[in-house]
C-alpha cells in the first residue's frame, strides 16, 4: 500500500516536471526583448508559415537554439553534479569540483589575455576567429584537467584525495588566471570577465552541430551509470564485494561528467550553481536515493531550471540580457536553503 502510494507520487512528480519543462520551453520561445504575438508563435510551432520574416528568423535562429542550449546545459550540469555527489559522497560536490571548469577558465585566460599581451591584438575585436578560439581553448583546458584527474584517479585509491587534488587544480588555475589578468589590458580583462559570467545565447545552429551530440552522448552515458552509482552508495568496499569493478566505474563516471562539464563550459562559460543545486532539489522532491529515479529526474529538473533562469535573464521589456550566473545563483540559493530547512524540520 505504502509502496504503491510513493510510486504514484513519483509518477505524478515526473509528469509535473515534464509539463513544466514543456511550458518553460514554449515560454522561452514566445518571450523575448522583441514582442512577437503568441498566436504567431503557436502558428510557427505547428509548422505554418508566418507572414513576418523577421519574426520567423528570430524564432528559428535565435530563440530556439538558445532554448535548446539552456535545456541541454541544465540537464548535463545537473547529471554531472549528481554523479559527483554520489561518487565523492559529498553533498557539496558539483560538476566543477574536479577543477574542470577552472581548467576551461585557464584555457580561455591563456588565449584571451596572453594573445593580447603578446600579439598586441585585443581578442575582443577578432570576431569569428576569436569566438571559436575561445571555445576551443576552454575545451582544451577542461580536457587537460580531466586527463590529469583521470591519471591521478588511477594512482589515488582514495576519493577524498582526488577531491582535494581537484580543488588544488582549481586554486592553481585561478592563480595563473589572476597573474594573466594583472598583465592584461582592460578590454581583454573585460572579455574574460564576460565569458566567466556564463551565457546561453552564444550558440547558433552551426555550433550546435558539435554541442548537441556531445551533450547527448554525455546524457545517454549517464543513464548507463545508474547501476554502478546505486551500488557505490553502499560504500566502496561493499560495492566491490558485490562484484562491481570500482576502478572502471569510477573512471567511466569521471569521463562522462568530464565530457559534460567540458563541453558545456566551453560553449556557455562556467555556469554556476545548477549542478550543485538541482540534485538536492530533486532528492527533496522525490525523497529517494535511487539513481534510476534521480538521474532522469535531475535531467528534467536541470533543464527546466536552466530554462527558467534563461527566461528571467531575458525578461521582456529589457533590451539586454542579464548574465546567466547572476540569475542561476540568485534563484538557486534561496530554493536550496528552503529545501534544506524543510528537510530538517521533517527529520525532527
Amino acid at each position, binding site marked *: 500500500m505504502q509502496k504503491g502510494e510513493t510510486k504514484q507520487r513519483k509518477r505524478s512528480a515526473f509528469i509535473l516536471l515534464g509539463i513544466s519543462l514543456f511550458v518553460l520551453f514554449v515560454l522561452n520561445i514566445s518571450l*523575448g*526583448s*522583441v514582442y512577437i504575438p503568441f498566436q504567431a508563435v503557436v502558428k510557427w510551432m505547428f509548422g505554418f508559415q508566418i507572414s513576418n*520574416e*523577421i519574426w520567423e*528568423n*528570430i524564432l528559428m*535562429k*535565435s*530563440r530556439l537554439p538558445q532554448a535548446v542550449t539552456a535545456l541541454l546545459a541544465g540537464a548535463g550540469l545537473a547529471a554531472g553534479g549528481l554523479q559527483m555527489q554520489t561518487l565523492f559522497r559529498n553533498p557539496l560536490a558539483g560538476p566543477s569540483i574536479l577543477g574542470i571548469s577552472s581548467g576551461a577558465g585557464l584555457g580561455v585566460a591563456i588565449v584571451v589575455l596572453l594573445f593580447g*599581451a*603578446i*600579439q*598586441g*591584438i*585585443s581578442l*575582443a*575585436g*577578432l*570576431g*569569428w*576567429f576569436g*569566438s571559436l578560439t*575561445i571555445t576551443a581553448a576552454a575545451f582544451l583546458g577542461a580536457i587537460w584537467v580531466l586527463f590529469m584527474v583521470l591519471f591521478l584517479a588511477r594512482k589515488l585509491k582514495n576519493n577524498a584525495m582526488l577531491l582535494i587534488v581537484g580543488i588544488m587544480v582549481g586554486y592553481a588555475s585561478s592563480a595563473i588566471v589572476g597573474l594573466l589578468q*594583472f*598583465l*592584461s*589590458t*582592460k578590454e581583454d580583462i573585460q*572579455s574574460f570577465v*564576460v*565569458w566567466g559570467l556564463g*551565457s*546561453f*545565447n*552564444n550558440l*547558433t*545552429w*552551426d555550433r550546435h552541430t558539435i554541442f548537441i551530440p556531445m551533450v547527448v552522448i554525455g546524457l545517454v552515458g549517464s543513464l548507463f551509470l545508474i547501476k554502478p552509482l546505486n551500488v557505490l552508495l553502499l560504500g566502496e568496499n561493499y560495492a566491490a564485494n558485490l562484484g562491481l569493478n570500482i576502478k572502471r566505474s569510477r573512471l567511466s563516471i569521471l569521463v562522462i561528467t568530464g565530457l559534460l562539464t567540458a563541453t558545456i563550459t566551453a560553449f556557455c*562559460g562556467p555556469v554556476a550553481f545548477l549542478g550543485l543545486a538541482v540534485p538536492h532539489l530533486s532528492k527533496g522532491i522525490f525523497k529517494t536515493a535511487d539513481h534510476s529515479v534521480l538521474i532522469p529526474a535531475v535531467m528534467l529538473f536541470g533543464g527546466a531550471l536552466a530554462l527558467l533562469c534563461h527566461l528571467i535573464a*531575458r525578461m521582456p521589456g529589457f*533590451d*539586454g*540580457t542579464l548574465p546567466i550566473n547572476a540569475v542561476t545563483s540568485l534563484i538557486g540559493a534561496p530554493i536550496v536553503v528552503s529545501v534544506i530547512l524543510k528537510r530538517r524540520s521533517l527529520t525532527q
Partner: protein
Amino acid sequence: MIKKSGLFILALVALVACKQRKTEADKGMQKNTPIATYKPSYANRFKVEYFKDHKRVEVVHPWDSTQAPIVSILSEDSLFLQENPDAIKIPVERWVSVTSTQISYANELEVLQQVVGMAEPQYVSNPIVQKGIREGTIRNIGSAFAPDAELLMALHPDMMMISPFKEDFYGPVRSAGIKIATNCSYLENTPLGRVEWLVYVATFFNKEEQAKSIVEEIAKRYHDVKEIALKADSKPTVFTGKTYQGVWYTAAAESYNANFLKDANVNYIFKDRHGTGSLSYDFETVYESAANSEFWSLIVNSPETYGYSLLSQEDERYADFRAFKEKNVIYSNSNKSMIYEKGLMEPDVILQDLVQLLHPELGLDKELVYYQKLTKE
C-alpha cells in the same frame, strides 16, 4: 596586521595632506586673475589659464563633474618652481606616456624624442617609439595600471601623462614625487573634441600655437566634408557593430562613433537611444531594428582579409540582414587601418570615407583610407 594598517593610515594621511597643500597653493595662485584663458571650441573637458609666471590647466573630473577638477600648474619660471614644488617644469624635456593615443598627439607635436618611458609598448605601432624601445632610449614601464614605480623614479621624468581609471593606481607613483598629468581625451564624445586635446598636450611643451592651428585645419577639413554630406538628398539607414559572446555592442546616440554617422548625414538606427558610451543589446533587438537597414558599418580586427563568408561563419544569422544580402557592408580592419591610432588625428579622412561609401549617389571618388566596402565573398 596592525603594523600594516598603521602604515596604510600613515600613507593615507600623507596623501590627504599632499592634496590639501595642493589646493591651498592653488587658491593662493588664483588670487591674481589670468592674463588669458583658452576655452576649447570642441572639447568639453579641459581649459587652460595663463598667468604671469605660470599656466593653470584644469581638467573636468573624469567621472563626476560636481567634484573638484584636476588641476596641473605648469611653469618655466625657476623662482615660481622653487616656491611651488608641485608645479610641473615646462617645456617638458623628459616624459612618460601610458597610451598609444598620447603618442598620436605627441607625434603631431613632434615631441616623441622627449619620451623616456612607455607603458604597454606592444600596443604602439609608431616607428619612433618602437625604435626607442629597441634601442633602450625609451623604457618599458610595464602595464598602464600597475607601472613599475622604481623604474619611474630612476627615469625621473618631468611629467607622466596618464589616462584616468576609476580606481587611482598612481598613488605610489605620486608619492614617489612623479608629477602626473591626466589626459581624459577618450571621454570626449565628438571627433573634433578628441582632436582638440592636442592643445592640452601642447601646453606642456609650450607648443599651443602650433597645436591650435593644426586643430583649426583639421576642423575646417572636417566641416568641409560635413557640408558635402549635407548635399545628399537621402539619408540611408545604417547600423553598427556585431555580437560578442552573445551581446551586441553598438554606439549610443551621442557617442564618438555615432557622431561620425550623424555628421555623415545618415540615419543611424539607434539615434534616439541616448548616451555617450556603448549600448549592449541581445541579437533579436538589433535584428528587429536593423533587418532592413541599407548599410552595415563594422570595425573588425582580423589578421586575414575580411569577407562575407568569414562574417557568416562567425554567426550564421548575420546573413539574414538586408545589408549583408545586398553586399552593403562597410568595414575598417583596425588590424591594418590604424583607425584608433592614426585615425584619432584624421577624423576628416574617416568622415570622408564614410560619406563616400554611404552616399554613393554623391559620386565622390577619393582614395579610401580607413573604411572599405566589404567585397570579398
